[in-house]
């Protein structure tokens, strides 16, 4: 990739193309988000703090953060397993499974939501045996976690796969010839190489989980203080004409998204360096 600057005189169209890009970006993304910030700034900081520190908001934010973190961790573990098996082993049906990993990306969230709820409800295929074991899933925080793992899985699998495929087998052979067991090689040699991708994938899953609405509203049961997630509370406040409350919480979510995006940029730069 050439680092030299292209002289504007040789390739035409830079001005108009950049103009169109920035115009669309401003109209579609920046102006609407600015409207959110402007609405928040119309109130005083005290009002903002009051709006985001009510017990119901605190409970919703805490639930969203904790369940998203847990789901991101589970997605990382499952993603490592699935990515490893898909890249390293050959077995019948592998190509089909590889395609199917994208299902949670492609399936509309409302469909995922009603399907998981039906499956994990106390009368569902999976919910009935689990309820018999004393583990209710639907309408509990665990159910929210299940939906978020479903959603987060493709992020971790797809960020790990290219890194797993690019690992140099000679490094593993060297470790083995120096007397490392397979498990030691994995822990001391492979895992450090995979770490940037693992963190990137789970951060993506976490960011997605924090803002997710469609696949969670059905399975969560939406009980205030217990299974109400932050994005749903924004919706509820808006429906109750509490625009200031909805805006304050939405601003909090927006700031979190932006910070996560910056973290992701850092992680991706680190991952790019690690791959070399």
């Amino acid at each position, binding site marked *: *990739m050439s*680092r030299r600057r*292209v002289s504007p005189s*040789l390739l*035409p*169209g830079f001005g108009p*193309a*950049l103009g*169109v*890009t920035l115009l*669309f970006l401003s109209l*579609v*993304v920046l*102006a*609407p*988000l600015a*409207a*959110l910030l*402007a609405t928040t700034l119309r109130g005083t900081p005290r009002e903002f703090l009051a709006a985001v520190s009510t017990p119901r908001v605190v409970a919703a934010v805490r639930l969203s953060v904790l369940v998203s973190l847990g789901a991101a961790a589970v997605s990382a573990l499952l993603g490592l397993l*699935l990515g*490893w*098996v898909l890249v390293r*082993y050959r077995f019948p049906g592998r190509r089909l*499974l590889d*395609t*199917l*990993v*994208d299902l*949670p*990306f*492609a*399936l*509309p*969230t*409302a*469909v*995922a939501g*009603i*399907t998981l709820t039906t*499956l994990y409800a106390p009368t569902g295929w999976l919910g009935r045996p689990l309820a018999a074991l004393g583990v209710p899933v639907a309408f509990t925080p665990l159910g929210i976690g299940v939906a978020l*793992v479903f959603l987060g*899985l493709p992020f971790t699998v797809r960020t790990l796969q290219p890194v797993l495929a690019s690992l140099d*087998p000679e490094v*593993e*052979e060297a*470790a*083995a*010839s120096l007397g490392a067991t397979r498990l030691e090689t994995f822990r001391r040699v492979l895992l450090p190489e995979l770490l940037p991708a693992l963190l990137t994938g789970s951060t993506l899953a976490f960011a997605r989980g924090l*803002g997710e*609405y*469609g696949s969670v509203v059905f399975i969560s049961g939406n009980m205030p203080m217990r299974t109400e997630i932050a994005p749903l509370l*924004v*919706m509820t406040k*808006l429906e109750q004409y509490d*625009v200031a409350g909805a805006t304050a919480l*939405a601003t909090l979510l927006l700031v979190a998204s*932006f910070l996560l*995006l*910056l973290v992701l*940029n850092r992680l991706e730069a680190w991952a790019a360096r690690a791959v070399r």
Partner: protein
Amino acid sequence: MTAPRSREPRAVRLLLIGLALAAFALFLFVPLAAVFVEAFRDGARAWLAAVTEPDARHALKLTLLVAVIAVPVNAFFGLAAGWALGKFRFPGRSFVLTLVDLPFAVSPVVAGLVFVLLFGRTGFFGPWLADRGLEIVFALPGIVLATVFVTFPFVAREVVPLMQSQGTDEEEAARVLGAGFFTTFFRVTLPNVKWALLYGIVLCTARAVGEFGAVSVVSGHVRGETNTLPLHVETLYNEYAFQGAFAAASLLTFVALATMVAKAIVSRRAREEAP
């Protein structure tokens, strides 16, 4: 060939494959199967009745209309962004790229809310719109705007990195040979990125058809008027009309499956044609 000692014992390999298959079954196969089992629970005739009733037909039409508007807008933006950000370097370029990605990180509910704040009854332009009898929120324009917002990065994300990695040599050659901007773009640049463009359009369409959270905030859920297909699914489900909800959901699942197949085909073709 890897040395025997750098591979797992056979038993471990089989165990890992078994665990992975179990995870696939639990998280991906079972939900997929459940959609169709529930949709056809009362037979094919009931399924057909549910997907052809007037509210369902209207929801399908609205969903397609929204996609037909939103996808070309974002494809056009993606190509413009590809040219400006992929073929040229300038200060602030990476910051612009981060902003393009922003809609991916924003919660769909927040994406819907911002348009209510702009165009809703008490929003910035609310009174002005009300004076002129114009409706954006709880009407088609709001649904389109929210959809354009959430699908904004899809095409640009695919096209910009590819245009960047392809560099500018071919375009410069075309220019030197006397081609104008449009000839250069349509005869040189566009053919080079056609698979990435198509890939982005496929992903963009899938999300536009399936978007729920953002559209839910701006649509107002008026049956037979502002219900898109995903909202129709929700309405029926909340009315305990499960078979109808899953019948409509099965249509969306077909779209998702078609998306995955198209994605697999397009990325294979792109790999084959890559030098």
